[in-house]
């Protein structure tokens, strides 16, 4: 096609390939973000409305029933005690949504992953792009959430803002192993409903969110120990009001969260490569 035309011609395939090898993950992240843009209002309403509703209901309403400032709550108000937990739980629930249904849509319902797969992008880049876009959403949502927490005066320490990253990390620690699982599902038998009800919900309710984990009998306390929500929440509490726990335990929280996220990312890459290479 050497005929003269109004539009400039594309750069040569070699240039396409070189750029895709380098920036491919970002190109796919751009696509996911464009899709999210269609849901801007839902995302904003959710990001702002949910924290305000929860902080009011639990932090103000429920607080009237509990003994504010008791030792059980680390010496701070009930609102300040649950704020980091709500921040982390919201991030984990968003991650649970973003790494399930859209992944299934990508492979099966809408087959959106297979479009870029026919371009120079590799499966690993497609996975990475999806993860990057969701990470950005988690950061944004957690930042808005934290702003609400701060307005409620529920973040006494100057380090509270770092809870935004703790929440995002917790979201990835839970979401990425789940993403690997989502990528392995070939037939929809309601698995996601089961994940939400038998995994996400118990983790939310038994992770020391509304009360210290020690209040639960040992029979269910272990749920907290393996829960990214608990590790994220405790980390958030240390940052937000200097929750008294051994520094080693704090380091363990970070290690568990990072470990789960890295493990999940690796599994996801492998799943994506195998599923798309068929």
């Amino acid at each position: 096609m050497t005929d003269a035309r109004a539009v400039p011609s594309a750069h040569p395939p070699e240039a396409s390939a070189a750029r895709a090898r380098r920036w491919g993950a970002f190109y796919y992240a751009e696509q996911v973000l464009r899709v999210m843009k269609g849901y801007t209002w839902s995302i904003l309403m959710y990001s702002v409305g949910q924290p305000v509703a929860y902080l009011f209901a639990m932090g103000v309403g429920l607080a009237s029933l509990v003994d504010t400032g008791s030792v059980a709550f680390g010496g701070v108000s009930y609102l300040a005690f649950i704020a980091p937990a709500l921040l982390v739980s919201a991030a984990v629930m968003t991650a649970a949504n973003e790494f399930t249904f859209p992944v299934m849509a990508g492979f099966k319902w809408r087959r959106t992953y297979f479009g870029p797969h026919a371009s120079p992008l590799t499966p690993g880049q497609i996975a990475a792009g999806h993860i990057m876009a969701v990470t950005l959403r988690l950061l944004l949502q957690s930042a808005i959430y934290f702003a609400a927490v701060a307005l409620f005066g529920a973040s006494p320490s100057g380090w509270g803002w770092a809870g935004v990253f703790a929440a995002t990390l917790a979201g990835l620690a839970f979401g990425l192993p789940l993403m690997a699982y989502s990528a392995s599902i070939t037939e929809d038998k309601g698995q996601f409903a089961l994940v939400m009800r038998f995994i996400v919900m118990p983790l939310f309710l038994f992770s020391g969110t509304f009360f210290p984990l020690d209040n639960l009998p040992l029979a269910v306390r272990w749920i907290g120990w393996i829960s990214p929500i608990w590790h994220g929440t405790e980390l958030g509490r240390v940052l937000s009001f200097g929750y008294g726990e051994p520094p080693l335990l704090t380091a363990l929280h970070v290690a568990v969260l990072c470990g789960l996220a890295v493990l999940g990312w690796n599994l996801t890459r492998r799943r994506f490569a195998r599923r798309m290479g068929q």
Partner: protein
Amino acid sequence: MSTAASGTGQRTAPDEARNRTFGALYSRNARAVISRGLMATRSTNWLVMVSGFFEPVLFLVSMGVGLGAIVGDVQGPDGTPISYAAYIAPALLAVSAMNGAVYDSTWNVFFKMNFAKLYQGMLYTSLGPLDVALGEIFLALLRGMLYATGFTAVMGALGLITTAWALLMIPASVLIAFGFASLGMGITSFLKTFQQMDWINFILLPMFLFSATFYPLSVYPGPIQWLIQAMPLWHGVELLRQISVGSFTAATPLHIGYYLAMTAVGMLLTTLRLRSLFLK
């Protein structure tokens, strides 16, 4: 010619349909829709079915045990103190009835209509839209009743039931579900996209959190109390809470009346909107 038949006074099936109330909408065969629904449950994942029952139970165990240890006893509907678990259990049952009914009449109907195209197939037969709507609502209520029975049994096992009146929570939660299901289906008829479906959650979440579910209404200033009292879930929570201890007041018939009215309005709206809901 068909004029011969009608001339002799014999009435053909279409004639009968024409003279029936809601002839175009209803063929008195919701049974067919119900039996299809029951047949379909055989091939669905039973774990998913069972999982719906666990959600309120998990909330009850977590909040009732974990938080209950901190909160201690609270004032019950009849003024005597009860455990925190006994206080929130009826509220969680009301929330579960609401969530289940709303899910079945909104997301479920929306999906079957716009994606599975299930209703289009049904409406090519002699079924009318009202048969479909009644069938779906019946199925939702049946499921709600099973969950309510299970939850009441769990309450009994945890020692949270002290009176035989509490068994009435089962029919009462079916009434609550009926109100939400009929109104939910009417509202679904106005919605067209997934984004709009999201709005339903924006209404349910605050209702769940603020309707005296976890703490008494007296926490709020006056005007906010009135606002919450205008919302349906609060009436359900109060009704079930009263039934759970067998303590009834002048407000009891008001709560029941609220749901009867809500069901009537919902069914009227659904019937009026059925054409646009199913025959678009």
